[in-house]
């Protein structure tokens, strides 16, 4: 085992937020770290949008019906696919980070990324086809 179990520790500032979206000169791990944080923040924002939207259910049947007519429009369903991409990436990359951060398969972290990609891509394609009514 080449690394102690647990998260990477360092003193002082972590990577600047402005650097999260700058892909140049970054290794695969750095890019997936940035995308993990971006999808994480997006999912937290979505959590509160989701909880807010579900309050329509408290208002009643007609409010929920009106909401459904908006979110089931074809244009809006594209957002669902983006959301599912965010969920899949965060979940699969999160498993990779948990394994590597806990000291497992540290030397295979690049391979784990591609395994996660191989699992996530067909799931995303299936979900997109299903969302648009094809499966």
């Amino acid at each position, binding site marked *: 085992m080449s690394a102690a179990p647990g998260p990477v520790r360092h003193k002082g*500032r*972590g*990577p600047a937020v402005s650097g999260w979206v700058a892909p140049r000169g970054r290794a695969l791990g750095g890019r997936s770290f940035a995308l993990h944080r971006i999808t994480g923040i997006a999912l937290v924002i979505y959590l509160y949008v989701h909880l807010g939207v579900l309050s329509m259910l*408290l208002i009643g049947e007609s409010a929920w019906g009106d909401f*459904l007519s908006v979110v089931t429009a074809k244009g809006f369903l594209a957002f669902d696919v983006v959301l599912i991409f965010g969920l899949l990436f965060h979940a699969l990359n999160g498993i990779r980070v*948990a394994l590597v951060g806990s000291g497992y398969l540290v030397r295979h972290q690049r391979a784990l990324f591609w395994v996660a990609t191989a699992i996530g891509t067909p799931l995303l394609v299936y979900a997109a086809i299903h*969302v648009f009514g094809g499966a």
Partner: protein
Amino acid sequence: MRAWRWTVGSGVALVVLAAVHMVAQHFVVDEAGGMRTYQQVLDYIANPIIFVIECGFLFAVAIHAMLGLRGILLDLDPGPRGRRWIDPGLWVLGTVTVAYGLVLLTTLALRA
């Protein structure tokens, strides 16, 4: 180290619970976009097993989200004064989130 363990633990729970939530809520219903109608939502939430699963999902997602925000905020190096507010602030936000979710779930389950 304790925050790391809780992040990983809640993350592992979420992989299972989010998968159940997504499939059950959005992939088994024939309605447009896989969305349940009002009555279908009430009937679904009123199932005691589903109610417990959704409550577990709510707790896991709130814990994981707060710990994720905590990690990002600490990485931004907010200074000693800022650091003092992070944990209490996230405890309040997480507690409000879980409380609102439980009110929502319970109200809907009782309406069925």
